[in-house]
């Protein structure tokens, strides 16, 4: 099976995150591999391993679109176990919205299928931890005419049939489709493995291919701010919540809590 896992290099949520510049984009210093993508990578590795790994012709390719720093997300993915990496990078991509991003990623996946071994499965996290729109999986599936099985909390591939379970609010569902397909997974699906010493050494020998827009046949006007269908017109840091009242329970905090709720007209 040939599996492509989308991995994104995102600002670490443990630190303050900032929106900067004329395009109101997120500052990418202090970035890491989006932790929700680790679940997709783990799912891909499990599928490949169940099928006999590299020896049996399985492939797990980590794909990241982003500026030079995004290569770090790929390196981490290789350390965790991805077999190879692909880095799509081009100045013209800066400021792409979901529509432009999905266009570039779709072209990259077509490019990766052009060696005669088509991609069977595209795996993604449920959302990036920065934009959090969950649009990319759906838009990529639409662009590639693939069935989407999103928010999967379990995943099985039997022959060419992919079966996933998902939790959809008031009900849970089992969904199925034929490969090739796109699957996004939640953090309920597995426990992602950590890179171990062996993995870190092995990663040094693995390849990361660099691709530009020209390589995937995309015109610069189709991506970046030029190719985006939305603009962020303004961004303002929200004033921090003003410090509230903090009390230590002296045996009557429950009553004080009710007094507070009454004063706020919340009872």
């Amino acid at each position, binding site marked *: 099976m040939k599996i492509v896992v989308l991995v994104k290099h995102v600002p670490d*949520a443990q630190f303050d*995150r900032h*929106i900067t510049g004329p395009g*109101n984009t997120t500052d990418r210093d202090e970035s890491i591999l989006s932790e929700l993508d680790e679940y997709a990578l783990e799912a891909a590795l499990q599928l490949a391993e169940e099928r006999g790994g590299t020896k049996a012709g399985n492939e797990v390719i980590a794909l990241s679109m982003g500026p030079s720093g995004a290569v770090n997300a790929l390196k981490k993915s290789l350390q965790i176990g991805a077999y190879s990496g692909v880095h799509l990078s081009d100045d013209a991509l800066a400021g792409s919205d*979901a*529509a432009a991003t999905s266009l570039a990623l779709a072209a990259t996946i077509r490019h990766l299928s052009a060696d005669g071994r088509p991609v069977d499965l595209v795996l993604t996290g*449920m959302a990036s*931890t920065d934009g*959090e*729109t*969950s*649009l*990319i*999986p*759906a*838009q990529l*599936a*639409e*662009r590639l005419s693939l*069935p*989407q*099985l*999103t*928010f999967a909390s379990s995943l099985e591939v039997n022959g060419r049939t992919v*079966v*996933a379970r998902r*939790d959809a609010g008031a*009900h*849970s*569902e*089992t*969904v199925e*489709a034929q490969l090739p397909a796109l699957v996004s997974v939640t*953090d309920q699906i597995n426990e992602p493995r950590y890179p171990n010493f062996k993995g870190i050494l092995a990663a040094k020998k693995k390849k990361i291919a660099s691709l530009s827009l020209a390589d995937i046949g995309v015109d610069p006007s189709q991506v970046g701010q030029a190719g*985006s*269908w*939305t603009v*962020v*017109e*303004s*961004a*303002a*840091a*929200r004033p921090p*919540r003003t410090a*509230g*009242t*903090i*009390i*230590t*329970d002296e*045996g009557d*905090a*429950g*009553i004080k*809590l*009710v007094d507070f*709720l009454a004063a*706020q007209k919340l*009872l």
Partner: protein
Amino acid sequence: MANALVFIDNPGAALKKSNLELLTLARKLGETAVAFTGELTDDVAATLGAYGATTIYQPSVDDLADYLVAPKAAYLAAAVATSGATAVLLENSPEGKEIAGRLGIKLNAGVITDVVGLDADRTAHKSVLAGSYNTTAKATTPVAVLSVKANIVEPEPAGTVAEPATAKVEVPADAVANAARISSRTEKPASGRPDLSEARIVVAGGRGVDGDFAPVEELADALGAAIGASRAATDAGWIGHDAQVGQTGVTVSPQLYISAGISGAIQQKAGMQTSKVIVAINKDAEAPVFEIADFGIIGDLFKVLPQATAEIKKRKG
């Protein structure tokens, strides 16, 4: 010709509050039509009219709900073409956002998700990066697709009421060709409590409840609140995953969020930081949740919550 098209997906016997909110907001943009799926009862049609819908579209096929996302996007694209709408409003549920995403590609239309406010010129307001930034965004395309969060406007009927026209929309024959099929669906038992994403009050418990949600549930019932939880509590299996609030759970913006025995990790804050009033009860004075609490109690939840519950019952008589 409609200006705004509101997607109302299989509401059942009565419209949900979030449906009415979308209709209320859509009227800002001009004449409003509805793209409907499921059974359209006389009651529902009358309510749609009362909220300003001039036309109700229905799909030519009735199996859209058997597939995931793609055919609904195909139906909506056809409804946009028929109605001439320049804005589509959907619910901000995971499925709503995905339908919006696919629809955007079909229509070459900009998509904006997580909308918390909308101006008459289609400028959308959002809160991003776990609530730390407020942004405005706009689609630069002829059609804009917007998924709108619940609880951002009070539902308000339209001033004048006319009986809406109904019309069928032809769903393209290939709409299901590349869609994933839903092979089984299990309804979860209803709790009788308000729906977490729409509740006015949420009482949430974390690892600090140590397996015992009873004090959280009793306070929630005294307040008529929904129950929330941290991931530590849902991972431990003390309560269903549906109750998880946060980055990978439900996002809530209630009038009141009571956090009990939850440390306030960034992934938890991401789901509740936009609550109007935040109350935190935690044994640890250093817990990060106190940084965002309007009222914080350093104390044991097993003492504070039952005392508060008893006091509320007493005051309510």
